[in-house]
């Protein structure tokens, strides 16, 4: 079939759902109008570990409006069938109100159901829970690590022993919470034996499967609806306890029930980016050629599940290294289970790797970009696979030129403006974007409009818009005549909306469905005696703005409308799919960036101010340049948070999260966000997937924190190996 002209794809279009969002018409999880919904509020454990010895519900039940109080002593037992899908990590998942064990501070231990939100909230305060408390273990440094996941190539010990230059560096990375603007919320309704859930989730299919497993239902008996997600960053990648609690409460109360987590509850009620203790030993020769690396990584997990993430990949693939050894241990703590957060694993690893590379460059007196260039691998050295595209050097070159890298202070602490020390830093970023099987369906109606559906999700990157762009070009329609629907488990299944896989996976399925429809229409036209295209070579027909015509003679053609109308076809439809990469693929598809930062550090007060940032990305084809820029800005802002502010603080005496609110858990405000610029390298990655995209939502936050940390070093001469970088760490100047 003839390739379609590209009209919508690549254009800097505004969001198709923008008007709905800014006018408040977009319905978020808690806003769906479900008749007769009662309100439920969770009661959270006020100890960090132990057993519940008594639950006194009398005062709560006596409060006007309170309908029921559920706890482990009276809640129905749930089947909790095994479910290795739904992003459940290995382990035994938390069973909501099924036993008297408290596994972490803030664990839901009761649910108060009431006719009004106020009654439910007050009722929750009136529930008196007694505990037999034990000392929780919540400190990563004190916990007992599990058996390591290991990787090795070459003899890293020997390589380090023989290396002319050796670094031995220890890092501490703080726990981060996603803190999306929209709180997590669920409305659950039972209709006989089937369950409908309006939920904040990044994966309706995963939540559907988990609820079916928890309640012992057939998958088709559960429907999950989530048309809009007010930010996620990964927090919506699992079905959390409050969603089960809502469904459980609705079943007991025999009416729909709504649960909205408070900001405080979001900290123990969803996941988080785990804290890490990370020791890196790195050796090179005097010219900066890396010789060996040994990584010892300890990360947080819960006592009941083993969460791991891709923290090892970058150390294996980003630079050419003959000898690498890695040991990644999870430390089981009395905390809730972590979950992926933007740039998962890679962002944490990049802080270590990329600040270490900066130290090495400084030690060798090399330009940090030159050091990276000298260690550019020809292939993925972890498996011998070819890189589909790898344009990291180009990212660095373009970035250096655009940022004015050559004007950086060559000596640390050598540039001063008044009280401020000025420095510049850069870091490379890599991410391994997912490509997973996905389905979509499309229908072209006789009026020349089309509807495309896929379960999917849009947590903010612009899935609605970008999928509409892909569909519009494949169908040869304008953006306005295509409607893309998502966020419903009744739609064709798609993978989780995370891991930078939506564009490649869902987009390729959408492309397939729409290509099929266009083909059907073209074949219908060339076979139709009454069509101006009758007898034409189908390969020579393209569609633009709803009109089929010959590529070689645009005057010869007709519209979808006339074609379908004349042929009495109410619509054409097709099911599209994307199978994911073939098992036999010997290809590494990674997205890259080079991130540059300029900071000012108050020489005596220790304040750090990011003055400007630039990210240059190799992410394959860019479907929507405007949304891609927004993504990059968001990633860089997130990276400023990780570098300088974000830190979930646990009081290890009782496992309480101390700063579970947005006044004490700091994220950047506008005043902290300087001039931020994003550039995407033009081109595509034809080997990656049918669209040639590599995914960009994750890679944009990788490398940001180390670029800032390297700039802080360049400004002050001080190397901070603990995140976030605080005033007190810089006060020792």
């Amino acid at each position: 079939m003839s390739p379609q002209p590209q009209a919508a794809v690549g254009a800097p279009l505004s969001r198709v759902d923008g008007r709905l969002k800014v006018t408040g018409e977009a319905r978020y999880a808690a806003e769906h109008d479900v008749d007769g919904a009662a309100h439920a509020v969770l009661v959270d454990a006020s100890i960090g570990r132990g057993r519940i010895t008594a639950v006194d519900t009398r005062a709560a039940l006596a409060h006007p409006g309170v309908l029921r109080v559920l706890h482990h002593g009276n809640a129905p037992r749930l089947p909790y069938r095994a479910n290795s899908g739904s992003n459940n990590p290995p382990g035994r998942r938390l069973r909501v109100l099924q036993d008297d064990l408290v596994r972490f501070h803030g664990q839901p231990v009761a649910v108060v159901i009431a006719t009004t939100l106020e009654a439910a909230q007050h009722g929750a305060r009136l529930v008196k829970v007694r505990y037999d408390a034990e000392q929780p273990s919540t400190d990563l440094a004190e916990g007992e690590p599990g058996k390591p996941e290991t990787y090795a190539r070459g003899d890293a010990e020997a390589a380090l022993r023989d290396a002319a230059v050796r670094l031995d560096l220890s890092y501490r990375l703080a726990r981060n919470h996603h803190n999306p603007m929209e709180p997590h919320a669920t409305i659950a309704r039972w209709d006989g034996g089937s369950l409908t859930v309006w939920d904040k989730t990044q994966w309706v299919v995963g939540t559907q499967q988990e609820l079916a497993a928890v309640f012992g239902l057939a998958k088709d008996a559960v429907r999950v609806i989530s048309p809009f997600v007010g930010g996620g960053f990964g927090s919506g990648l699992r079905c959390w306890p409050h969603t089960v609690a809502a469904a459980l409460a609705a079943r007991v109360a025999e009416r729909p029930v709504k649960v909205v987590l408070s900001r405080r509850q979001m900290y123990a009620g969803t996941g988080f980016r785990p804290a890490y203790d990370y020791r890196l030993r790195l050796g090179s020769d005097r010219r900066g050629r890396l010789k060996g690396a040994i990584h010892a990584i300890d990360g947080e997990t819960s006592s009941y599940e083993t969460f791991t993430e891709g923290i090892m990949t970058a150390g294996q693939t980003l630079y050419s290294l003959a000898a690498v050894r890695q040991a990644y241990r999870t430390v089981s703590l009395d905390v809730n289970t972590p979950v992926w957060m933007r740039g998962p694993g890679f962002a944490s690893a990049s802080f270590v790797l990329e600040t270490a590379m900066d130290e090495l460059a400084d030690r060798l007196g090399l330009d940090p970009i030159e050091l990276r260039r000298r260690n550019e691998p020809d292939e993925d050295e972890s498996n011998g696979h070819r890189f589909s595209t790898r344009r990291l050097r180009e990212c660095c070159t373009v970035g250096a030129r655009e940022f004015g890298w050559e004007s950086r202070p060559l000596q640390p602490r050598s540039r001063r403006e008044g009280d401020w020390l000025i420095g510049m830093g850069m870091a490379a970023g890599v991410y391994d974007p997912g490509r997973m099987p996905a389905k979509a369906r499309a229908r072209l109606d006789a009026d020349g409009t089309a509807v495309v559906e896929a379960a999917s999700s849009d947590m903010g990157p612009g899935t609605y818009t970008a999928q509409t762009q892909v569909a519009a070009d494949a169908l040869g329609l304008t953006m306005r005549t295509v409607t893309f629907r998502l966020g419903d488990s009744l739609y064709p299944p798609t993978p989780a909306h995370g891991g930078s896989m939506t564009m490649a996976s869902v987009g390729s399925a959408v492309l397939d469905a729409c290509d099929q429809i266009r083909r059907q229409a073209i074949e219908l036209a060339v076979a139709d005696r009454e069509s101006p295209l009758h007898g034409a070579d189908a390969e020579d027909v393209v569609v633009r703005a709803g009109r089929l015509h010959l590529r070689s003679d645009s005057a010869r053609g007709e519209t979808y409308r006339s074609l379908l109308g004349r042929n009495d076809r109410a619509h054409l439809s097709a099911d599209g799919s994307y199978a994911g990469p073939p098992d036999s693929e010997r290809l590494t598809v990674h997205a890259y960036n080079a991130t540059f930062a300029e900071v000012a550090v108050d020489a005596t007060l220790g304040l750090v101010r990011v003055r400007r940032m630039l990210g240059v990305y190799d992410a394959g084809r860019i479907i929507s340049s405007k949304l891609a820029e927004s993504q990059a800005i968001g990633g860089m802002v997130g990276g400023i948070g990780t570098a300088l502010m974000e830190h979930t603080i646990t009081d290890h005496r009782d496992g309480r999260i101390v700063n579970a609110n947005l006044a004490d858990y700091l994220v950047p405000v506008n005043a902290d966000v300087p001039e931020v610029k994003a550039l995407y390298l033009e081109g595509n990655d034809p080997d990656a997937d049918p669209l040639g995209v590599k995914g960009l939502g994750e890679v944009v936050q990788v490398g940001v924190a180390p670029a800032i940390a390297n700039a802080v070093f360049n400004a002050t001469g001080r190397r901070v190996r603990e995140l976030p970088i605080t005033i007190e760490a810089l006060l020792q100047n």
Partner: protein
Amino acid sequence: MHPFTYTRASDVPEAIAAGRRGGRYIAGGTTLVDLMREGVERPETVVDISGLPLRDVVATERGGLRIGALVTMAEAAAHPKVRALFPVVSEALELSASAQLRNMASIGGNIMQRTRCPYFRDPTAACNKRDPGAGCAARGGFNRGHAILGASDSCVATHCSDVAVAFAALEATVRLLGPDGRRQVPIAEFLLRPKTSPDREHDIGDGELITAIELPALPRPLQSGYLKVRDRQSYEFALTSAAVALHVHGGVIRTAKVAAGGVGTVPWKLPAVEEHLVGERPSQSLWATAAAKSADGASPLQHNRFKVELLKRTVERQLRIVGGTE
């Protein structure tokens, strides 16, 4: 939220009567409503005083200013007389909270605001301020933001108002009206150190209402300003801050008013720094030697040791900014 009764006072005597019956005054509600939602504050009756005629900023006969208790933070910050006479007050206000909060919050309410200690704000944590006798979770817990000055065994929470630091520096007076008539209390006496009863934070009786804050006349010309050090550039409470006002005549400092924030259980007046400055000629070394006294008597906790040095540097910086280096 604990159920409560809401009434609206139509004049000052009605407000005082309602307050005397146990009602809690509410104006902008930016602190009280938050704390009620968290279950920290549980008033039975809330008395809305936002309609009372306490919204004027007037010059006093001797050259001071009287700011009505219900003047919003935004109005006070932008008021031409405040800007002209006491820039330190405008700056402290503008570095506080967010624009939205400054539009709601009143000056009287601002100095009454309660601490940001996270254990105080979490009803499941031990806190003597919230629940006398319960203990202090902060002293042995996470205490990076807490006080290094003025703390007691029972409480280490900071007073978190910025403008109260400026008021403390300037030696402002709190004007009160209550069932027994009018009172005027210096701000240093109005805001109480925790000692053994950290739940008692103000010298204010049942039914007493703050009517105004009075800024005294000070010798002119007076240079003044506020510096706030924090982890992010906006919308955050101070780790350290410094309010400085200086009157220099004939090249000699004749009057020095200095207080620090973010470090004390109350806004921390620095008389030793002031005394060191008066009679001296401004110089870089004077700022340093004066500021070196600003943390005298500090007793830091596990996570806030850095505040001792940061406080000295903050005060030194602000002395230089206000006083110059000639």
